[in-house]
């Protein structure tokens, strides 16, 4: 069933009786060609593109909870391709281009909204680094602009320009950056995959990965064994847990990232902004809530909740940047588990086990990567070759010294 404005009107006039389930709830078959472990954004996107772009069949997505319950269900919804390094920028720019056509592609309004993102700078060194980055972005075909203080002030006159500990000097801007309604991404991919025959199996936790003679043959689940020719793992946050089924240690630690939303407010902040002198970034949702976050808590955790120091640190950043928000109220906080990798960049690669493929290590940047991650992982699964924009995302980059370290923090995941 296609969604459209006409359909909405027709259904409104006939009591909404015609709407069909967004996806089926099939029983798992005994085997598939492809099993994707993880029904979050990346897993669902992978299944969608496997079916749609790579014309593969007999695909299942196994999800231990509900569809879209991974980090696609709890993030700050930002999309952008303002990366510095050669290993990253083509991939994220590919992702941004996919976002730009996504809703028409999967016939679901995910509210992709390119209202622009600015990264504020407060020192000459930050300006120089953003100049370097902005040039790298343009060289890779992305858009970037360097704004001075007056230009930032014209956009957001209410920021703290006059009484700040770290005065705003300007910003790097990407106009094509913005936000997306995060749950809708999962649902759009799920519905699109389901329509193309993918079995989306919820409440089905993988408890083991079976191998024979160095080759993956299927997975044990809470709903029994399911055979597969190829198994793709897309469970960021829990990557180490799942890969421990095959005794693989990963260059990844799991950390908690908190995020926050305020009560609904009349329009205030049109785009996305990040503070260059504190841990704070913010956008405003279409419903009116300020959606904001900061740094990770910084210790290994699978608890999906954090502690007060980071809450206060983020609020301090917010208050020092936007002095009026003292009187706005924080409505809800939440915590997601991040796959924090050793260089801050992801992995989309084969493993040492034939037929077992891995997608993870997204740190807290996985949401914006969803379309390209799905596409590139599908490409790898279908062709056994990395997608041209994801060739750097290999496990062996650490062994070879080819790290993709945007922040220059080295092998300490909580600093990325």
């Amino acid at each position, binding site marked *: 069933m296609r969604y459209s404005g006409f*359909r909405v009107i027709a259904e409104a006039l006939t009591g909404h009786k015609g709407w069909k389930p967004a996806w089926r709830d099939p029983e798992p078959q005994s085997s598939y060609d492809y099993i994707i472990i993880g029904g979050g954004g990346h897993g669902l996107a992978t299944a969608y593109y496997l079916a749609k772009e790579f014309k593969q069949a007999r695909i299942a997505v196994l999800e231990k909870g509900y569809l879209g319950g991974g980090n696609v269900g709890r993030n700050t919804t930002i999309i952008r391709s303002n990366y510095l390094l050669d290993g990253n920028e083509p991939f994220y720019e590919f992702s941004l281009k996919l976002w730009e056509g996504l809703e028409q592609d999967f016939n679901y309004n995910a509210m992709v*909204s390119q209202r622009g993102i600015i990264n504020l700078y407060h020192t000459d060194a930050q300006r120089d680094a953003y100049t370097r*980055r902005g*040039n790298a972005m343009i060289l890779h075909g992305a858009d970037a602009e360097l704004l001075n203080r007056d230009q930032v002030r014209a956009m957001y006159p209410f920021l*703290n320009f006059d009484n700040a500990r770290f005065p705003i000097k300007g910003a790097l801007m990407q106009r094509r950056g913005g936000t997306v309604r995060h749950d809708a991404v999962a649902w759009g991919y799920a519905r699109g995959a389901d329509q193309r025959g993918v079995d989306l199996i919820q409440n089905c936790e993988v408890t083991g990965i079976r191998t024979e003679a160095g080759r993956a043959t299927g997975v044990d689940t809470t709903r029994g064994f399911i055979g597969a020719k190829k198994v793709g793992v897309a469970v960021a946050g829990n990557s180490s847990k799942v890969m421990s089924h095959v005794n693989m240690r990963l260059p990844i630690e799991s950390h908690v990232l908190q995020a926050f939303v305020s009560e609904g407010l009349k329009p205030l902040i049109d785009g996305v902004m990040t503070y260059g002198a504190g841990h704070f970034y913010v956008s405003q949702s279409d419903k009116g809530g300020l959606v904001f976050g900061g740094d990770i808590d910084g210790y290994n955790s699978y608890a999906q909740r954090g502690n007060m120091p980071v809450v206060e640190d983020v609020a301090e950043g917010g208050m020092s940047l936007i002095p*009026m928000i003292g009187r706005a*109220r924080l409505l809800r906080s939440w915590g997601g588990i991040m796959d924090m990798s050793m260089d801050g960049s992801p992995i989309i690669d084969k493993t040492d086990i034939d037929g077992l493929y891995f997608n993870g290590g997204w740190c807290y940047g996985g949401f914006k990567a969803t379309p390209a991650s799905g596409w590139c992982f599908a490409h790898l699964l279908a062709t056994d070759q990395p997608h041209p924009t994801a060739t750097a995302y290999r496990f062996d980059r650490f062994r070879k010294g080819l790290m993709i370290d945007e*922040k220059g923090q080295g092998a300490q995941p909580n600093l990325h």
Partner: protein
Amino acid sequence: MTQENRIKGGQIDRTKTLRFTFDGHPYTGHPGDTLASALLANGVRLMGRSFKYHRPRGPLSAGSEEPNAIVELRTGARQEPNTRATVAELFDGLEANSQNRFPSLKFDLMGINDRLSPFFAAGFYYKTFMWPAAFWEKIYEPIIRRAAGLGSLTREEDPDQYDKGFLHCDILIIGAGPAGLMATLTAARAGARVILADEDFRMGGRLNAETLTVGNHSGADWAEDTVRTLAQMPNVRLMPRTTVLGAMDHGIYSAVERVSDHLPIPAPGKPRQILWRIYSAHAILAAGATERPIAFENNDRPGILLAGSLRTYANRYAVAVGDRVAVFTNNDDGLRTATDLQAKGIDIAAVIDTRQEGDLLPGIRHLKGAQVIDTKGKLGLKSITIRHANGRSETLSVNALGVSGGWNPNLNIASHHRGRPVWNDAIHAFTPPTGGPKNLTAAGAAAGALSTHAALQTGAAQANAALEALGLKTHTPDLPKAEDAPLNLTPFWYVGEGKGRAWIDQQNDVTVKDVKLAKQENFTSVEHLKRYTTLGMATDQGKTGNILGLAIMAELTGRSIPQTGTTIYRPPYTPVAMGALAGRSRGPEFKPTRLTPSHKWAAEQGAIFVEVGMWLRAQWFPKAGETTWRQSVDREVLQTRASVGICDVTTLGKIDIQGCDAGAFLDRVYANTFSTLPIGKVRYGLMLREDGIVMDDGTTARMGENEWVMTTTTANAVPVFRHLEYVRQCLYPDMDVQLISTTEAWAQFSVAGPNARKLLQKVVDQDISDAAFPYMACGNITVCGGLRARLFRISFSGELAYEIAVPTRYGDALIREMMKAGEEFGAVAYGTESLGVMRVEKGHVAGNELNGQTTALNMGLGKMVSKKKDSIGMVLSQREGLNADDGLRLVGVKPVDPSKPLTAGSHFLDIGAAPVAANDGGWLTSVVYSPHLKSSIALGYLKNGTARIGQKMRAVNLLAKTEVEVEIVSPHFFDPEGDRLRG
């Protein structure tokens, strides 16, 4: 207007009258009122509009669970949007305005949305607005954004102050109703240190809202007496107006105390609110329960309240919401509303009881097996239509309706560690999970013990359990006699008949139909239900409505309610002001400001300062007649190179390293060798991370056999010290080496230029001739006739230069003394800009080059990494990817046309090469104007750069659409042989 709905009794102070306005109309109330109770007393039921359909709304509740009566409180910079009128304490002069309506609350143009509601079903926006793609940002979304949102911020700085504090206790008790008061009394009498926190301004919880008795007193009097008793006890801290927001780890609870929200403005020197972190050994959740409604057609009209809240307004606030009232209930608690109100002389039109069983209320029209199926009254309830058990319908004229669907324990905080609530079949509600925060127990209604007796009894019992765990003597008080009636609830969630809408989430306008549509579209997981319909995502977080949605979904899917489950409870319990979370860290006090020892002197000279991390450093020192920063900087550089200049370099990290194994230790942490360094000498050191990337650089001086002084960059002072301690304690625990950070202990100045020695000799007591104190010498000296000092003959500028250090408290005196001594040489002070110019001229790397992504090889220092010894980073620095022949190399850059300015961050492209990533040669890291070369010059990282020296390229800045033809040169622009250093 008079307080026409005010009745007798209540806990308000009628001796004082408070004036306030709502939407500009003046009203009066009394101390003890909330904004909502005072408005209701004045006959005002309409207080807001809903989010989506802009339906007219009045208060549903009398507490913090309120979804409807939310207003903009106060005006000007103190305006606070989305304030719940039901908990806003009335004060004289209060100004409130309705929100999310235009032009007025009674006539709201956006009310059209209500007429169009068939088109706005759950999730409709996911199915449309997709074509054409560009219309989303340009047309659809701006309309949606303007229509959405609730209250507004003023765009002015929040003028109030907020504080933060820390409290410690044996037992934290959350909620001061009968359970919390009895728990506090029990624990306090046993000698425990107790904190009792309650969100209300009046402690007592439901006791203040009921006519029930405790012992021989009214419940409210018992509560008041108990609070008075507790207030006398030194081991008890009573915290009214304090909401416990969340359960953190290890017994830490966050709480916000609203110190001044009940005042027009905070008293002088007082904060508006305080954020507390409460450290507790035990905690008892006695937060009570929240009543839940029943969904039926048009159940959202002003005048329809929760039955218990109707009672609260009558008993506590002496307000009759209506003069002809009906009650709709599925349990015995709802009946209390009818009896209490009737006792106050209010006309009870009927009690509509969904249950068939049970006794009939005497003297009241009590209709068994009946339901409310519709209501009328656009801006306020006028009538209800009921369906009798026999199927007959009847319309009753009423202006208030109390609804009770049962009570939900306020278990939120017990679930903040993601424990799943447990379903209780006796009260048909979720109770706290078994695996909640450690050492947190629940008592009273929060634990599902809904009667007053059960609250008192469990309060005492949980206090005793906590006392026992703490090893304190337990104390079993005599429990005062109190009612112990069962709830007798027969589950009834929504009225099935009718084609209209029955609200579940009143603020977000989620109706029974929306839940059914979610089921129809297979959004059956409770998380999908929430996210698809927005159920429970409003400012009340679904405190009243969520359970209805779950119950209806459970019924539609044939699952039980516990099988359907709940969404996750997350902090904060109620929304909390951002200002409270930020406290004092805002504006100029966002972070501490570190000042250098010469700051005062520099300020006297009119220096311009710049933020360098937490430090403020002098950036340049303008002199009279200089109109641009370049003039000042050029002068400082030229004069330093011509004669002598002085710069405060205290911000560099300084670490004293002592012990027999200090040399061996330095060999491990530095890539190059230090153990061979003679006493009295300084060496440049390169420190790698274990991954082989450069972590930091600096000099380390050997002051004695076992005494070394390390310097780090300003930015890395703290991380390097941490790293050294890690290496010392975790990797080489038996090395005899001790570390202490002395960054703040020494004021340090660079004295550079051909006359540096002459100047210094005037303040240094010892001979520092080239023979006595050659290049790279160091030593403990004295200055000014005996003050201990350290001297290092090192140079960042490329000049004959020294760094001299004195105890910090003498830093100000030393800079003054040196500037005086330098007068005869025309000595200048120079700031960070000149420092940067001279180091770039000399080809020294700094922060822009040491960016955590570069190797020693990249910097042209590859040979410094000794492979003859193990050091941090030695092994992994040899990986192939870090040793490519055509990798990045540090180069110098100058424009072919010296008049062309360079821009740091520009990228290298070959002449004629297209601006695409494949042609990206690297970038310019640091750019300065060299007054010696009379041109802009730069350092940069260029692929295969060393081999390209002498070639011409372009430095392209695509952001500014500029490019400059450049020549690649050695990074050592100035005195490449280093003759001046050794002069």
